[in-house]
């Protein structure tokens, strides 16, 4: 590598780091993304100057096809479909890493054909990094495809479980690693990399199918991390430091997000990946005691909201399913015009990927300074007149605080029950993903209003308009 190219790669790596650093504030985030994109462009351009590149036809074709498809995906995706898209893109990154690492193996082996091996002496370290890169990249690709399929609804989102699942996955991984060691000992065994790819493909599928739809945010984060790691390993294969730096940044990012998601659900990563939560959905002790909810009309709700001084809105994914974000923001604006202090409380697992709810609300023109993360707003509920819960359930279930046998126990929740009044807008009394009945609904201070979120909110907005006019 010429020094000029090496320095350009360093500039690219610095742009990535600066770009990620600027994501620490919503004000600078967009510019940060542009910095990172600039770094990528620079890295691509200087790579094209590399002397090893002799033929540009395939490169141009690949860039045009990929660029076109990328633009299409990015422009057409709906904000609710963001988790699938990120999952799919993770997968593509993983697949690219696998292909590059395997192509490098073929190049080292003489590259006459897949089955021949004419190289006299291949560095064992390089071979071992090739194995790791191929393994991680392939698991990322197939795992991400399954995750995206589950999120997109083309595959049943319920966990798929069978006996000895964990053990089978462990055997698959061990077999792939043993094959890898064999290849390092004898790099000319051309079929081994293909066998590793095959095993990794199976492992990618079997390690994601036992995870339920509600736990997909964790899987998407984990796959994000894997795609970075695969890139870093490819960097080791090619001795290319910009790949190592960027891949590692992404790897740590994915791991940190995975950790945040697990903490927000009070589950260990192992529990998310293996426990198959959502499979045995058993409403235990249901109807054991007769509990009553107090049902209110939208008129009651409008009156309560108008007379509140402070309102905290707790949106859940049900809000996005009902496509009610825009009308919710209309309601919030109407209240703010009357001098009501309105904020949104965002639980870390609201939505289908880390931070998803913020994007869904930003799309509905909710200013981001109204979006407050859980830890910063939870102490304010006790001084708040109304907590307005829309399309959320498990994240406001007080059982998480004390009910030790509940699947929710220990999960951090939003303190909706500590507000002076809680308004819950819900389709029915069905329990949430965890299958745990929500006692918030039965509290005396809770006003339940049943129906479609969008219809209810629309009628609330209409009522507020009327009372302004009169």
């Amino acid at each position, binding site marked *: 590598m010429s020094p000029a190219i090496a320095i350009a790669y360093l500039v690219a790596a610095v742009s*990535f780091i600066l*770009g*990620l*650093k600027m*994501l620490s504030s*919503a*004000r600078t985030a967009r510019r940060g*993304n542009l910095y*990172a994109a600039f770094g*990528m462009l620079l*890295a*691509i351009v200087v790579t094209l100057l590399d002397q090893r*590149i*002799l*033929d540009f036809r395939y*490169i141009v074709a*690949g*860039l045009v*096809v*990929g*660029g076109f*498809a990328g*633009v299409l995906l990015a422009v057409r995706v709906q904000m609710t479909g963001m988790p699938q898209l*990120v999952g799919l*893109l993770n997968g593509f*990154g993983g697949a*690219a890493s696998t*292909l*590059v690492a395997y*192509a490098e193996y*073929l*190049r080292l082996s003489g*590259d006459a054909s*897949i089955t021949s091996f004419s190289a006299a002496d291949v560095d064992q*370290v390089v071979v071992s990094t090739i194995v790791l890169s191929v393994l991680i990249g392939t698991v990322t690709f197939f795992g991400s495809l399954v995750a995206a399929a589950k999120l997109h609804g083309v595959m049943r989102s319920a966990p798929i479980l069978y006996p000895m699942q964990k053990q089978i996955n462990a055997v698959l991984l061990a077999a792939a690693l043993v094959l890898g060691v064999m290849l390092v000992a004898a790099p000319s065994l051309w079929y081994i990399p293909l066998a590793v790819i095959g095993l990794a493909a199976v492992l990618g599928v079997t390690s994601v199918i036992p995870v339920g739809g509600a736990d997909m945010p964790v899987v*998407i984060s984990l796959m*994000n991390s894997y795609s970075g790691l*695969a*890139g870093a390993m490819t960097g*080791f294969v090619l001795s*290319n430091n910009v*790949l190592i730096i960027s891949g*590692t*940044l992404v790897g*740590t*990012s*994915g791991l940190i997000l995975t950790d*945040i998601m697990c903490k927000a659900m009070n589950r260990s990563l192992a529990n998310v990946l293996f426990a198959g939560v959502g499979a045995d959905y058993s409403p235990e002790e249901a109807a054991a005691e007769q509990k009553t909810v107090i049902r209110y009309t939208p008129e009651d709700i409008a009156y309560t909201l108008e007379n509140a001084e402070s309102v905290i809105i707790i949106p859940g994914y049900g809000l996005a399913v009902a496509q009610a974000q825009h009308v919710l923001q209309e309601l919030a*604006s109407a209240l703010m*015009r009357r001098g009501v202090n309105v904020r949104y409380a965002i639980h870390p697992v609201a*939505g289908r990927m*880390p*931070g998803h709810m*913020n*994007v869904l609300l930003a*799309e509905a*023109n909710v*200013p*981001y300074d109204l979006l407050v*993360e859980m830890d910063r707003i939870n102490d304010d509920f006790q001084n708040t007149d109304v907590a307005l819960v829309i399309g959320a359930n498990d994240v406001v279930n007080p059982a998480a605080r004390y009910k030790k046998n509940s699947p929710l126990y220990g999960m951090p929740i939003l303190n909706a029950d500590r507000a002076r009044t809680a308004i819950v807008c819900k389709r029915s009394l069905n329990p949430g993903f965890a299958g745990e009945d929500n006692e918030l609904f039965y509290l005396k201070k809770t006003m339940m209003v049943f129906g479609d979120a969008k219809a209810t909110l629309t009628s609330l907005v209409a009522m507020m308009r009327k009372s302004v006019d009169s």
Partner: protein
Amino acid sequence: MSDALIISIYVFVLATFVGVEVISKVPPLLHTPLMSGSNAISGITLVGSLIAAGEGHGGVSVVLGTIAVVLATINVVGGFLVTDRMLRMFRAGGGRKSGGAS
């Protein structure tokens, strides 16, 4: 072990620390753009794909390299664009702005 490998390991370990420092300062508000943006950055594998696709001797690795160029380009272009699309929607101005669909 070659010097290049030792240097790569240094880079890897130090980059991990940089990653933890930088990423842990990203607020939950921006975690989705963080994922899609970092996702685009992991498309840096494109650099390796370009060399594999352009070596010009018509071997299998060129075919694989070309497929890798397509996939990595989708990753890069799609990732950065969609991140920009999201970040464009994040606007400040609590209280004064009126909402509504546009």
